[in-house]
């Protein structure tokens, strides 16, 4: 299956008595890169987990094109790439083994070739056979980004993709995200590093107290827009 939009419609998510998301509505289109901003505990990761089909909303609907997560099932999951705060890689396996395992699990053809390409993108060719437990946080992050993108997903969900990356890797990751957008992916990312994504994102929204507000980044930039929403 394929889709060209992701729509949250009045999505609410409760954890016990705590309301993490409160009637969130947002539509993202193919070829769009959207920053999801907000303070710690605002519900950003919860929203990404719902988009990744790992959580279900307490109320409201999420649609991928015209389909719901339940209708889409495994075919829908095949079109979603998710980088979570926890990196979803096995520390005991090497970089190549991790990528190969997830490539095969996602039914990627020519897995060996795709893995080589991913290692090149992550600049980890010379460490391909080293266990991930010996990697620095930045190296793990680069590997995890490539793991999320191995199967050429339509919807790319990235939770703090720039965490632990050095300047060179930040530049490379920004270029990578730009290419994904140009290829027609829907890219939804969370970050606290507003300056890094300022020129990259098409638009930005802020989650605060479970509620979503749009930022007009053309009025003084992302930082100013974020402050306006946070203080309003």
């Amino acid at each position, binding site marked *: 299956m394929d889709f060209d939009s992701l729509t949250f419609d009045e999505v609410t998510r409760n954890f016990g008595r705590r309301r993490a998301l409160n009637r969130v509505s947002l539509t993202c289109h193919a070829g769009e890169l959207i920053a999801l901003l907000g303070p710690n505990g605002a519900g950003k990761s919860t929203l990404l987990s719902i988009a990744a089909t790992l959580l279900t909303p307490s109320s409201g609907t999420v649609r991928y094109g015209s389909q719901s997560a339940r209708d889409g099932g495994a075919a829908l999951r095949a079109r979603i790439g*998710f980088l*979570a705060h*926890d990196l*979803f890689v096995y520390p005991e396996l090497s970089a190549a083994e991790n990528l190969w395992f997830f490539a095969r699990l996602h039914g990627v053809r020519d897995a060996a070739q795709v893995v080589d390409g991913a290692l090149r993108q992550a600049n980890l060719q010379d460490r391909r056979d080293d*266990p991930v437990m010996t990697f620095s946080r930045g190296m793990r992050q680069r590997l995890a980004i490539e793991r999320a993108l191995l199967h050429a997903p339509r919807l790319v969900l990235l939770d703090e993709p720039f965490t632990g990356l050095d300047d060179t890797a930040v530049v490379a990751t920004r270029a990578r995200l730009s290419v994904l957008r140009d290829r027609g992916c829907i890219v939804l990312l969370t970050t606290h590093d507003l300056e890094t994504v300022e020129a990259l994102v098409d638009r930005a929204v802020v989650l605060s107290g479970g509620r979503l507000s749009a930022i007009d980044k053309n009025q003084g930039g992302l930082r100013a827009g974020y402050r306006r929403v946070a203080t309003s």
Partner: protein
Amino acid sequence: MSFLRVVWLVMRKDLIVELRSREILYTTLFFAVSCVLVFAFGFVREGQPMEDVGAGILWIAVAFSGTLALGRAFERERQSETMRALLMAPVDRPALYVAKLIGVMALMAAVEVIVVPLVALLFQAPLFRHLPMLLALLLAGTVGFTAVGTMFGAMLARARSRDVLLPVLLYPITVPVIIAGVRGTSALLQADPDPAVARAWLSLLLSFDVVFITLALWTFEPVMTD
């Protein structure tokens, strides 16, 4: 991707991880052997074991070490939240359950290979007199125990008190497995072995296996979604 292909991929990955760390195998084996040795100190006097204790001790060692293996198998998936990555893969989710089930069973089988001769030696139990029936009881019992344990292990992987909750949930439900295993094995260890009784307990174990594997395959996807 086919169901069996997914099972093989996940099992292979688990096997490689375990071969690198040997963490679960060594800890469960150490625990099972320690358990048998402690009972040997209590129940063997002047080289003579108490009557009919071998079967109970064998199954206690299997159940306790199995609980340890189940907890660690899912702790590994929790550390980097890789369970969520597995759940996001476009595969039949029950295949993930089956892969974990077979993986834990393989570890328990490795423990049983050591524990059965040890119990036979320390408790002078003629465990090898009806070897095919003993193997059938152990296999059916291990399947039943791990079928329930794998389900709970996966459900509790993200719970804060998982180490406490796993045995609390697991043992009451697997009591029939442990009773059937002990009584079936005990029937084989008597001075006058009774294979018919052992077969009856084996039938009960097989029924338990069918019921709980069916239930687990049916409920795994909805239980793991949220």
